[in-house]
């Protein structure tokens, strides 16, 4: 165990424990972001550049921010009154221990441990991954691009303002056979709007 690894490991675990125990949800979210960064550092230290950078981009950049947004939009971040410790923790601890024991058992009995000569891991840096994506896997990459287009269109459609839909449905009840007026972005002025 090298000193840098020890520092990163302690930091990551401390941040994870903090995320679990802190009362204030915003503090927990920040702590979990630190834990994500610690994991990314571990990956980078293992020479897995791509995984490390992806961890930073996806988890620190997107997931942590998403969590913060969710907290801010839903409950404003006030701390809960009652203690975070409860009886159900016993079960949680038991499950955790069982999972940990299984993992330890699996690793102990894995053939990787018994292998004497350490195999040199194949080099996979960001450049190689980029080249593979743009040459051999260019077709799946393009299809993923199409997928993201479809997903983006769908996200806009599903997340658009609710009231225009309701107005439309009430409208449609009365005159079902007329062709709809599917204004995509601008919802039509409501018929009652001017008279109020």
């Amino acid at each position, binding site marked *: 165990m090298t000193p840098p690894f020890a520092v990163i490991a302690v930091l990551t675990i401390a941040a994870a424990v903090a995320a679990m125990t802190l009362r204030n949800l915003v503090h927990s979210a920040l702590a979990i972001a630190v834990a994500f960064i610690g994991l990314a550092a571990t990956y980078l230290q293992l020479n897995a550049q791509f995984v490390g950078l992806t961890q930073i981009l996806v988890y620190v950049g997107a997931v942590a921010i998403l969590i913060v947004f969710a907290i801010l939009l839903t409950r404003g971040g006030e701390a809960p009154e009652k203690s975070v410790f409860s009886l159900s923790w016993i079960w949680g601890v038991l499950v955790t221990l069982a999972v940990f024991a299984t993992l330890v058992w699996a690793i102990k009995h894995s053939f990787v441990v018994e292998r004497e000569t350490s195999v040199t891991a194949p080099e996979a840096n960001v450049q190689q991954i980029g080249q593979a994506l743009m040459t051999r896997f*260019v077709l799946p990459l393009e299809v993923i691009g199409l997928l993201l287009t479809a997903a983006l269109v769908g996200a806009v459609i599903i997340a658009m303002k609710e009231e225009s839909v309701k107005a439309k449905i009430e409208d449609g009840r009365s005159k079902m056979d007329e062709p709809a007026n*599917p204004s995509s972005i601008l919802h039509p002025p409501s018929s009652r709007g001017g008279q109020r």
Partner: protein
Amino acid sequence: MNLSLMSLEISVVALGLVVLLADLWLPAERRRALGYVAAAALGLLLLQNLSGCCSCCVAGGDGTAFGGMFVQDGLSVFFKRFFLLAGALVLVLAVEFSDRIATGVSEYYSLIIFALAGMLFAASANDFAMLFVSIELITITFYILTSFTRGKVAALEAGVKYLILGALSSAFMVYGIALVWGTTGKFNFNELAQVAGNFTDNKVFLFGVVFILAGLGFKIAAFPFQMWTPDVYQGAPTPTTAFLAVGSKAAGFVLLLRFLFTAIPSVTAHWDKLLIIISGITILYGNLCAIPQRNLKRLLGYSSIAHAGYLLLGVAAMTSAGQSAVLYYLSGYLFTTLAAFTVIALVMRHLDSEDIAGLAGLNQRSPLLAATLTLAMVSLAGIPPLAGFFGKFLLLKAVIEQGAVNHGYYCLAFTALVGVVISLYYYFGVIRAIYWSKDAASREPILISTPMRVAIVGCIAGIFWLGVAPGAVLRLAESAVNALHCPGLALN
């Protein structure tokens, strides 16, 4: 790089983008007709494919692109025509349905076309990367299409259920792909086939294969992965349900056939028992659960599970007769299911729920629709001389032929027959509601637009054609499955 092989996919994607962009310039009242334009374009592509490919298949139009990742052979051509036809009919249905979509009608059309593009890629996928990417393109587009009428709680519920279970099954499949790749180091199906024989007792490899089968089983709604089907079928807008029932299921089957018989034939050969059991349970589950259903779309959801079971008969038989029967049955299923959902969309337009009681008096309101739904139900039940009968006959024949090898096949054939007998009960319940119900809610005649009428008559013609003159399609199906067994494509 042979880009001309992909011209169909490129055209379909371009069509989807054009429809998406046309929304910006078209006045609102003309956007609805955009669906007809898109359907006509798909029809043209289908005609061009039918006329063009007959000559190019002979001249060696088959081939691979992107290092064997994308393959164009008899099987993929068969399924591409299938998907184009289904897409065109679903678009016509979507135009009919568009007055119930509050926002984004042209987005609805273009998402259907994007899902169609995913199916076309799936038909040609010969590689785990393409398999996963095309399945995701289909599934993620369907999440959106399912909850498109988000004013309805049922649609949102269906979308969320489909999203969660779909994500779970995708996770299983990716994990399986990782395990298979980790043990064999092969991504390409043809390369995998050469080494798969060495791994038949490698547990990690077999776990990977099982996980991939779980992901594909979710797409086709086979037994342990069928939970989503009734809720999603019921909640989704009717055109989405129709496309889900036909296109998504067929895409699952083309990938399943390719995976089982091109990538891992040496493993599949040992797994006849697994396939027999899954097929039998799927048939019984779908048919038994359909009996108490009162909602027509939910009933068709359970019936679609049962049909996945029938289709698995052909996969379980593991002969080319069985596989061509799968292709034939799917063709009949396309016309039958689309006809049924078209009638549902037209008849139930003023009703909040798609209850079977809403069919009362349909015979007086529109004899054409009543006859269409009756034909669809009779064909789904498998009564001669319609498409469903001949498909079931071929599937059962393929299974019974294998009975000499393994007696489990006789049990499977018997189970399938029991399933058919059970299904007669609920299919005829629908027909009874059409002709012999007393209290009709409404007696006003139903107006059918001309393109809709063309689509309905086309479906009826298809049902009769496949039932009476099966020769042409059967020959096509037989030549298509040849591609599975002798991948005569040079590997480089």
